[in-house]
Structures are given as C-alpha cells and as structure tokens.
C-alpha cells in the first residue's frame, strides 16, 4: 500500500512538472519575462507581405488560451488589418498596402489577459524607389508632435507600444499623468486623442471630476480615443478644469486634466453656431446660442444682433427651448439680419413653463415680478448673455460695439420693446413686429404702468425712465394689414393685467383692433415727441406671419442706423 501511494505521488508530480514545464517549453521563442507594459515579446524571422495575407508560424500554440484581442500597429498607430489566430498560426491581411521595409508590431491579448507583442518587418520593395519614409529634409523639428515621432532612418524594432509611454511621470498618488492640448466641449460630445493607446479589455473604469466632485458623463475609450458625452442638454462649466481618471485592469491609474470651453477658437472662414452653457456666476441661468457668420470679423458692421426666443408653446421641459433656440438662430428674422450685415447673432433659450399667466417670452409684468429662482429678471440675464458673448468674441479677435441691434416679432417684439424701455442704453436699433409699451407715465389722464407705459419702471431699474437714451434708439415697428392677432386683447387677470390697465387701454384706444389702435399709437408717439426716432410701417398683404420683404427691409434699416444718426428707411409696401 505504501509503495502504491508513493508511485501515485510520483506520477502526480510528473504530471505537474510535465504540464508546467511543457507550458514553459511551449513558450519557446517567447521572452521569459514581460516588458514594462506587460507584454511578452515574440521574435520571428517572417516578414509581412505588403499586400495579401502573411502567415506566421509560431513556435508555440495558444491552444485553449485563445487570442481575444489583436491589432497591427506601426509607430504606435493602428493599421487596419484582419488578424486570425489559430493555435500556432497567425494570418495577417492588411486592408491597404503596407509601407515597405518598416517595422510593424502585432499585439495580441489572450483570454487569460496574457499580452504578446511581435515586431515584424514588412518586405522591402525590389525596385528602389524613394520611399515616403526617407528622411524629409524640409521637415522642421517643431512640426513633429511627440506622439507621432518618426525616425525615418531608424528601423530598429521598438520593444513596446508607443515609446512615449516610458516618458509618463507619476504624481504622488502613483497616477500616470497624461497631457493633451485638446479641450472639452461644454455640451454634447467631445472626442479626445489620448497620448497612449488603451487596448480592448484593458480599461477597468473611467471617472471625470471637477474639484473632487463627480461629473456625470457617458464615457468610452477605444484605443487612443476617449469619447465624453455630456448629452446636448447637460453642461460643463466654461473655463472649468476637469480631471479624467482612467483605471486599467493591471492596477494602474492615469489622469488627464482638461479645460472645458464653450468656444475655444473661432474660425472666421466658416459659419459657426455655438451653444453656450448656462453660467449662473456670470448672471444667466439658461443656455444661449451664438451665431458667427463667416468673415464677420471683417464686417463694416460690428454689432451683435439679438433676437429672443418665442417658439409659441409652453412646456415644462427646459431642453425643448434649447432645441427651438437652435431653430430660431438657424432661420429666423435675426439670422437674416446677421447675415445681411455680417455680424454675430445671439438667441437665448429662455423657458416658458406650463404656468398660467407667465408668458416669459413676452417679458410681461408677472415675469418681471418673479422674485427668485432661475427665471428671476430675464432682462438682466439677457444683458449678462450679451456681455458674455461680446467678451467671448473679443477674446477671439472680434470687438463689437457695446449697443446691440434687436429683432422681434409678436411676443419677442414685446420682449424687445419692453427691454428697450428698461435698458435704452443697451440698444442701438430695433426692428420689431408690433409696438405696445408707450414711453410715457400717463396719457389722457390714465396712469400707464409697465408694460403699458413707464410710470413704475423705476421699480425694476432703480431710476426713472431715461427719455434721452430712449430717443437715441432707432426704432422700426411694423404690422401686417391682415394681422388680427392683437396681443392686447385685454382682460383683467390674464398675464397680470389689472382692471386699471384695462380701463386705461379702453380709454386711450377706443377701438382695440388694427388699424385703429396702430394709427393711434403713431399719433401718441408723435404727440409725445418721439416721432423722430420711431418709424411705423404697415406691410400689405400679410397676417401674423413673416413676409419675404421683411428680410431686406431689416437689413436696410440696420445698415442705415449703425451710427448715432437715426434714419428712417423707405420700407417696402408689400410684405411679399
């Protein structure tokens, strides 16, 4: 019995020895140890065919430890190729012709996460033609970036992945420091090219934080591309510093610090639309869009056009107003004006929640009276956006005049006209469809409170109505002759209208409809002495909609009123 037991032990031991040493023996031409990056190096005398399939016989077999990830690389960059591995045979078929007489690297990762690296030369071409990899004498050292460092005359095989890996420094926490000159977009997707590759199956997880706080973002790494998706409606902070931390399955940590920007560098040869993230610290709680026409930096008219948003519906979704602002900036009245004078355009994405009598887009009294929360003082938020946009443009080489051009229609005309009464010093000229706020505190014995008049405007501005500044604003107000959509169909309780507002309006405008009310307004303006700066116009053949001729008239109007002089234009009679 004892003897049998001893024999059993011997047999078991031999089995152990045999399988393990056979394993070791199977590794054959494989280096016994891994390099700094965890790769076993396999040497081979085979050469890669420039086209077609190359078959390489290995001196060992992967057997059950099958290859799960494979890649062909040259100087750290992936070269498209199909690689098939089966036991001890590797077949490589590149998609495009390979460069001749170069060193390529095949990288393999097996099921058990063993990593192999094969350095293999591509075949030399028989007819000696000047290879593109010959030393270019005209390349200046400064144009070669560190990650694509090409040594044209050096064909010694590299022993690992990109040679820059060995240059990574570590911080006190043992984190490898990655660096990049790229930046994050404040919304939507950003693709960052990392200075090193992370092969499939090596990433453990990734985080992004600002000042130690996790920032929610969808992220993914494919080799050297890091994709960060904020979604279009969530934002990073402009100018904020973010740290991306990459954790790999071999226990290493990497960190990359990047800044986020709304706009980094404007290419004035292109038409650009930028989405600017909300910036409560700068005074605006909603996003805005900024349209920068091509060559606007060369324009004769360096003045921001502003058109507030008015998609016409109320919804509790904030995201909606961003999409609609993009629509407006892409094809509204403002866009045509901006193109016509080759100057940037700003469209805010102000909300309009499903709350009765809170018509934010018309800047009504209840809206101005909002005492707290994100929607407080949308007029001041618009000013903050204007300042921000002008600052951004200035940083990028385009300095604009301080005063803006405004465009409005229907509710957004209410907004622009009310805005001008509140902040006349901010606006140079306005082209708006409609006119409601009268630049007076009383008329015909009736007190006119905001937004019917300016008797109580100091409660918002802290000072009395600035008549002088108001007279400096060139105003063009129009109305379609078939437009019956009079927003001042007044009822107490609707949009903050009081009984005394109604009484005043009914007294001053006995007939509340077009053309009577429109004509009376002109009369009032002239009587009050504002006739020089305010032009009224009726377009023929149009209801509550845009006419084709509006676009040319607004451009003519703005071009004529870019200086201190106020000019009345010869507007088109017909709307179309």
């Amino acid at each position, binding site marked *: 019995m004892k003897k049998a037991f001893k024999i059993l032990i011997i047999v078991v031991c031999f089995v152990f*020895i045999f399988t393990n040493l056979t394993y070791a023996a199977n590794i054959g031409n494989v280096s016994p140890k891994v390099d700094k990056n965890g790769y076993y190096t396999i040497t081979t005398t085979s050469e890669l065919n420039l086209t077609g399939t190359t078959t390489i016989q290995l001196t060992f077999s992967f057997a059950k430890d099958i290859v799960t990830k494979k890649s062909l690389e040259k100087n750290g960059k992936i070269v498209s190729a199909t690689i098939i591995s089966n036991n001890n045979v590797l077949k490589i078929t590149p998609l495009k012709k390979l460069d001749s007489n170069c060193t390529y690297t095949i990288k393999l990762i097996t099921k058990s996460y063993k990593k192999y690296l094969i350095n293999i030369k591509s075949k030399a071409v028989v007819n000696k033609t000047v290879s593109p990899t010959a030393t270019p004498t005209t390349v200046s050292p400064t144009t070669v970036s560190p990650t694509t460092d090409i040594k044209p005359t050096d064909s010694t095989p590299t022993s690992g992945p990109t040679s820059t890996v060995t240059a990574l420094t570590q911080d006190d926490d043992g984190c490898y420091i990655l660096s990049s000159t790229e930046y994050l977009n404040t919304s939507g997707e950003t693709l960052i090219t990392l200075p090193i590759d992370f092969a499939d199956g090596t990433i453990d*997880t990734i985080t992004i934080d600002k000042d130690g706080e996790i920032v929610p*973002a*969808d992220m993914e790494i494919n080799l050297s591309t890091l994709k960060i998706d904020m979604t279009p409606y969530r934002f990073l902070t402009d100018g904020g510093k973010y740290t991306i931390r990459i954790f790999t399955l071999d226990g290493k940590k990497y960190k990359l610090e990047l800044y986020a920007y709304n706009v980094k560098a404007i290419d004035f040869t292109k038409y650009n639309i930028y989405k600017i993230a909300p910036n409560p610290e700068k005074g605006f709680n909603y996003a805005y869009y900024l349209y920068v026409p091509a060559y606007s930096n060369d324009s004769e008219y360096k003045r921001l056009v502003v058109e507030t948003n008015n998609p016409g519906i109320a919804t509790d*979704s904030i995201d*909606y107003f961003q999409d609609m602002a993009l629509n407006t900036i892409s094809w509204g009245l403002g866009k045509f004006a901006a193109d016509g004078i080759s100057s940037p355009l700003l469209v805010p994405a102000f909300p309009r929640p499903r709350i009765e009598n809170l018509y934010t887009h018309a800047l009504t009294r209840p809206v101005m009276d909002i005492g707290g929360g994100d929607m407080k003082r949308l007029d001041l938020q618009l000013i903050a956006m204007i300042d921000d946009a002008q600052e951004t443009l200035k940083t990028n080489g385009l300095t604009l005049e301080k005063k803006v051009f405004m465009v409005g229609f229907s509710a957004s005309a209410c907004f622009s006209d009310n805005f001008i009464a509140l902040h006349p010093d901010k606006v140079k000229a306005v082209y708006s469809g409609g006119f409601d706020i009268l630049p007076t505190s009383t008329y015909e014995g009736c007190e006119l409170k905001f937004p019917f008049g300016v008797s109580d405007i100091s409660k918002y501005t802290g000072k009395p109505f600035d008549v002088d500044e108001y007279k400096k604003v060139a105003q063009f107000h129009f109305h379609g002759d078939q437009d019956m959509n009079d927003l001042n169909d007044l009822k107490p309780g609707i949009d903050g209208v009081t009984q005394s507002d109604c009484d005043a309006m009914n007294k001053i405008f006995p007939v509340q409809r077009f053309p009577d009310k429109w004509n009376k307004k002109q009369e009032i303006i002239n009587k009050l002495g504002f006739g020089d700066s305010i032009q009224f116009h009726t377009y023929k053949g149009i209801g509550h909609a845009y006419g084709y001729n509006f676009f040319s008239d607004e451009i003519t109007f703005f071009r004529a009123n870019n200086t201190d002089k106020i000019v009345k234009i010869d507007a088109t009679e017909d709307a179309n």
Partner: protein
Amino acid sequence: MKFKNKILAFIVITALFATFASNTYAINSSVVSYADLKVTGTLNAIGESTITLSQNLENEKFDAISLNIENKIVGAKLSISGNILTVNPTDYLDGDATYTIKIITKSGKRYSFKTISNSISDAVKTNYPDCYLLEVSQKPQKGFNYPYFLLIPNGITNNTDKKYMMVEPNNSQSMSDSLEYNEDEAKEIVYAHGILHSGAGGYIVANNLKTPLLVPIFPRLSTKWSPQTEIQSLTRASLLSNDPGIQRVDLQIIAMIKDAQQYLNTIKIKVEDKVLMIGFSASSKFTQRFTVLHPDIIKTLCAGGLAGTFTLPLKSYKGTTLNYPLGVNDIKTIIGANFDSESYKKISQFLYMGEVDDNDGVSMGNITPPEEQQTVYNLFGQRMMPDRWNNTQQAIRGTEFEKAIQIKTYSGVGHMVTQDITNDMTAFFIAHMG
C-alpha cells in the same frame, strides 16, 4: 534519508517549483481583483436609486465610483454615505439590463457588484384618485429604444370581463430631440388633459373601460427635421429611415405592447394579446396606418381628426396605384410581408371627423410629401371637408372592407375631441369587445 525518499522529495519540490514558476509569469499580467460586494436594493432605470452596501465604507476616500455597462461608463452622480450608495443617472438607463458599479478606494481596495436595472418607475406620482401611472424605461435588447407610460385605472381587477389593453401613440405639438420635451407632451396625453391637448381621449376612454392604457414616448426630432422624423405620424419615410434610434417604430411599439402585457400579467391583470387603438390628428395617422401594417394585433380602432382621408386597404383606386401610406400596394417594401387582408377585415374601426375641422395634415409638407399630396388631391379632393372626407369613404363602399368600418361626422365640431366623441368611442369599444 533513504535514496528513494530523496528522489520522491526532489520530484515533489520540482513539481511545486514548476507550478510556482509558471504562475509567476502569470502574475505580471494578471487582472486586478474586485471584492464582490453584497447589496440590497435595486438600481432604478428611471430616477434615483438607494442601494445598501454590505460594508460601511464611511471612512474610505474614493478614487472612483462609477456606473458601467459593458465597456462604457454611464453618466451618473454617485455618492456613498456610510453604507448607503446613491445613484442618480443623467439619462434613463436601459431597463432589465446588467450594470456594474465599481468602487475603487484611495487605499487601493476595489469593490464591485452587478445589478439588473429595474425598468419600472412609479415615481410618476399622480394625485389622480382614479388611476395609477407608471413609466417604463427603454429596453433596446427587447426591441424598443424609448420609454413608455402605462396607466392602470383603479378598480381594474374588480372587472373580470375580457380586457384588451388600449394603446394611444403620443403626439408632440412641437419638436425637440430631447426626451424631456416629448415625455412632457406624452404625460399631457396619458393623464387628464388628453382632450384639451393633442391627445385622442385615451385617458378618458381607458378609464371608462377600466382597461390599461399604453402611451409610448416616441420623439419628434427637431435637429433632423424631415418627413423621416415624423414617426408620430408613421410616415413612409420614417419607416424607411436608417436612424438607429427611430428605426421601425411599428416594431418598437409592438415590443412595448408585449413588454407591458408581460408586466400586467405579473401583477395579475390579464389582458388579451390584441390591443385597442385610439388616435387623433397625428396619432390618428399612426393608428390608422398601423392597421394595414400589423392588422393581426389590433382588435378595435377609434381614430379621428384624420385630415379628411384614411389609408385604404386597396392596392389601387380609379387606376391610381396606392402605395403606403395611401394604400397597401407596396406593404412588402415597408414590412417585408404582404398585406394581411383577412386580419384587417376582423378589425372594427370607428373613423370620425369634425364637420368644421380645418387642420389639414395633407397640406403640411413635412407630414405629407408632395407626391402623396398630389395623389390625395387628385383622387379625393383638395378641399378637406366635406369633399375629401366624402370621396375617401366612397372608395370602400361596396367592398369587403366596408362592413367593419363605421364613419361619423360631428356637426359643428372642429379639430378636437369632445365629450360626445369620447362617449361614442367608449360605446364602440364596448360593442366590439366580443
């Protein structure tokens, strides 16, 4: 020591050494190991989740806390307080999908756990005494890329009659890529405001019938605005779209239906395989067109505000070929199968128009492309009411399809769903429940 024993000892030692040596090679490229964390609580696909960890990690400082699915990191706010992990994803997670939460401490300890996301949220709290509203997140692996609402009227289990789930496709007044907006609009349809908004009155009728109501949250995309994105009207272009999100919404709604039916089954609400469909305006187009694509799954249809015309179960009319969505000539191109007229004939249909309805979807270029417009004008008339409406009805008169289709015109009614209409629809569904 005896020589034999020395040999034995030598062999054993060599064996151990060999094993050890070969393992050493493995160590250099080994994978970090995670401690599997036991947890209680579920990861919700919609809204916040609170998960209790089996370990109190209060005194740890964290290098990373992340939410992962396959090789992707999912945007979420994650925080640990004591042994409570709170997760707030930015967007809805896929429902019934396996997510992994990873925790890496500064001291190098790693913890992880896998969890299957809970697709059902009753966070859509309603104060309505007559129903219970759920939201179910998207399940791409099950065939639908968008969430849906499921409304369950109270007292449903008291009624033991045969029940068919009702389906009302959503109709967003305006357009936006954002789920938030389209969900906001769908919510208006699914409870209370259906009639006053752009809904078909499904909320009211489903409550009358004491049957569940499914409202999908399909988007009406704004940034790629074209006939292809008018999925809420089930336009031809939208069904042929290659956009991965909005592809084949007819199949997506079927997947939602099946998913909802499975869920109802688990809470002991038995519904038949076929569904009731209800639509108005854009959703009248969706439902009415759906009947020719998948007639086998519809029991009864009520649709109104149809722009004075409807999809005919005919390949041609008066010598004009009728391709989808005007007719069924080329259904095979759209769904890969021929028109199933036998199943279609079994559907009871109530189609209605308001006498003074002036909302003409046929004249809207984005919803009705020029070629379709022209065909409709030529065959049925440019004037919607009463011409086009009367002429379209004429097309099915005397055919085998006429019997199952009931038409009504409501005098003095414009483009809206009135109480008379919801009463009539309720009665129609009940009459054809057998």
